[in-house]
Structure formats: C-alpha cells, structure tokens
C-alpha cells in the first residue's frame, strides 16, 4: 500500500531561523501517526507544513516535497485551499465559532463552499456528529451556541466540523491538552475509531497518549526527525539513544 503522505527533504523556516531540517517520512493510510518531542522541536510547524498552513505566516518559508496520494502539494498550480479541505486540522484549544449554533458550526465549511440545500446539510450535520459520538448529546440543542458546550464536547464539535467537508487526512495539534481525563479518553477512543477511515497525524506532549492511540510514532528533536517506527517498537525498544532518554524522562 502506498503511503498517504510522503514527506521528502522538507525544510521550514521562520525568517532566517530554520525550524525543520531535512525531514523524510512516510505516513501510512488509515493509521494514527503520533508526533512527539520536546517543546519547540517543530511538531506544530511540521503539522502545518502537511496542509500548507505554515505559509500563512508571512515570515514563513518551506522547501521540499509533501506528496499527498502521490501528488506534491507544493507543486505548481496546486490550490492550498483545496489541500486544506482534503487535509483538515484540529487545534489544541477547541475553537468553535462562538456566535454560531452547533448546527452552523458543523456546516460552516460547506456553506462557505456554497452548499445551501437544507436536506443535505441536515444529513451532514447528523453524520458528522454521529461520527464523533456527539449526536445523542446535542441532537435537541442544535440551535444552541457552540460555546455552550463543555470543553470536551467543543473539541468533538471541532472534529465534526473538520470531518463535514470530507477530508482524507486529519491533523490534530494536541487536541486533548485542554481537556479533563474523561473527555481525553473519549477523544482517544474517537481517534481510534476514525483511523479506520481516515489518516490521522496527531501531535501530543503526552507520550502516554502517543503510546495509547498511535500505530506509528515519530520523535522530533531540534527540528530533526530522530526516530520513526511502529509505536510498539518506539516505546519498547527505541533504536536511538535520544528517543530512549526522552521517553524514559531522562532528558536534560
């Protein structure tokens, strides 16, 4: 099976500061890949390079290739908006649009793309909310504000919003770091469920979370990819001394 995303010689800068150095990695389809590493090592930047969000920062620059289904997303004439639709993003802090209802939050992306038909929007809302196990909790309150939900529910709403536009890849940047343990467990179970149909890349500060939810783990350090492999191997028998030090907490 060909990888879903294939990163080749990726470098990234903020101004003159290089924050990613020659990253090469193949991300498997329908699997969860976790990105771990100390603060500032470039995890978020890496994630944002995977769907061309890095370049939104005026200071930012990228070189190298990211092949998505074999197509270089940095190739000439590729529409970044299209890429961001196919490769969705979920952020650290749940960020539902506060002035919008739950319903409108889910279909915001679709409406932006001109979908107006009430029936199909209804269907998308239901399907997306069911997918994130939120439907039963909110089905009678679809017109309430998204901000009225608990943190964990808001995060699931944001995942539903990302799923509504039918992406193939979901990028998640510390999606649980603002959540309590129960909400975190719910999101983790959800991630495993989604991995059956989506390709997921998750950045997490929590190594245990990476160990629990991911199939593959990549360890970044100072902008470099130090080690990458099946999660079982990384956590039982890492090959690189830096990885061993980081995951056993012997760093610094």
């Amino acid at each position, binding site marked *: 099976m060909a990888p879903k995303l294939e990163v080749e010689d990726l470098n990234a800068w903020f101004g003159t500061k290089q924050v990613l150095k020659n990253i090469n990695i193949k991300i498997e389809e329908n699997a969860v890949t976790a990105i771990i590493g100390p603060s500032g090592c470039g995890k978020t930047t890496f994630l944002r390079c995977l769907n061309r969000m890095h370049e939104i920062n005026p200071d930012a620059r990228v070189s190298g290739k990211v092949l998505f289904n074999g197509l270089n997303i940095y190739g000439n004439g590729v529409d970044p908006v299209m890429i961001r639709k196919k490769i969705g993003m979920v952020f650290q802090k749940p960020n539902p649009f506060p002035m919008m209802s739950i319903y409108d939050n889910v279909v915001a992306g679709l409406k932006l793309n001109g979908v107006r038909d009430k029936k199909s929007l209804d269907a998308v809302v239901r399907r997306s909310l069911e997918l994130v196990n939120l439907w039963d909790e909110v089905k009678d309150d679809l017109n309430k504000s998204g901000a009225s939900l608990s943190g964990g529910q808001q995060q699931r709403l944001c995942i539903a919003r990302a799923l509504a536009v039918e992406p193939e890849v979901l990028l998640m940047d510390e999606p649980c770091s603002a959540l309590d343990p129960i909400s975190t467990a719910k999101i983790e*179970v959800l991630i495993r469920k989604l991995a059956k149909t989506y390709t997921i890349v998750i950045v997490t500060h929590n190594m245990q979370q990476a160990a*629990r939810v991911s199939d593959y783990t990549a360890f970044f350090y100072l902008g470099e990819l130090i080690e990458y492999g099946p999660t079982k191997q990384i956590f*039982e028998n890492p090959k690189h001394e830096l990885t061993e030090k980081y995951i056993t907490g012997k760093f610094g």
Partner: protein
Amino acid sequence: MSRIIDSGLEELSAVLYKMGELAYHTVLIAIRECVESRDSYNEIREISDTLILMADYVEDKAFELIARFQPVASDLRTIKSYMKIAYDFVRFGRYALDVSHANQKLGGIRNCDKWIISHVKDMGEKVLSMVRLSIDSLKSRDPQLAEKVAQIENEVDKMYFDFLDELIERVDTTIKCAVSSVLIIRYLERIADHSAYVCESIIYITTGKRVILR
C-alpha cells in the same frame, strides 16, 4: 464506553483460551496413553511447541499493553496474571510430553501390576478434572469456582504420597514399572500444582487477594 486497552485484553484472553484447550488436550491424550495402546508422543510434542510459541506471544503482547497503556489495578493484575497463566499452560504441555516420554521410551505402565494401572488411572482422572476446572475458572472469572481446586489438589497430593508408600512396600515391582510409574505420578502431581496456580491467579485477578490453594 469500551477503552482502547480493552481490545488488547480481549485478544490476550482469546489466545489464553486457545492455549487452555490445547493444553487440556495434551494432558488428556497423555493420560489415555498410559492405559491404552496408542502413541501420541509426536502429537503432544507438536502442541507443546505451539504452546511455547503462544506463551511468547502472550508475553510480548502483555509487554506491549504495559508499555502503551500504563495499566493499573485490575488491568495490571490481569496482565501480570495472564503471563503467569500462559506459562502454566506451557507446563501442562511439557509434563504431558514427559508422561508420553515415560510411556513410549521407558516402557510405560501398561504391562505393570493392576494396582499401578488403576492408581495412575484414578489420579489421571482427578488431575484432568483440575485442568478443566482451571480453564473454566479462567473463562468464567469465577473465584468461587477457582477455590474448588484446593479440595481436589489435596486428594491428588494424598494419592501421590500413598502411591509412593505402597510402591516401597511392594518389593516384587520391576524396576521398569517402578521408574515409569513414579515419573508419571510425579508429572501428574506437577500438573495438578499448575492447575492450582491458574486458579490462584483467577482469584488474584478478580479479588486482588493472594491465596494459596495447595
């Protein structure tokens, strides 16, 4: 809500159930061999090797679950106990093979005095019922069922020592018969012990208490 670790635990249980049935089968045919004319050595050896591989798998998977999920409380007790139980099942296979070895390579007891044959037969039945009880306790997670093994274990122990006492008195027994029968009786007694270990593990998993059923 079912947790991510649950599918791993279920997979481990399923492997253990399979191991239990395979181990039971080896003990069953080894005991039959003692009194019937048949040769199950190769079959037992094959299953015994399979059990070793399966136990390695259980240990590996258990290790993975510990590394990935930091299990605590009943999850941790379950994983630790599963590794032990897998080893107990390996021992069933190994002692069954030893019994078969005595039968096939040392002459066995089929041509020995009636009292020896009947003693081995009785003890074999009891031991087999202990193996079954240990597997049933594992499947049902029933500590009360597991406790019942203690009673049979006592009886088996008594049979073991009674046999040795009697054998010493019977000066007319051939060396061949004495060697085979002592070995077989000893292996059966070891299988009984491991059945009790399995039951102790079930009680530990379900209640957290460490008991000794021997």
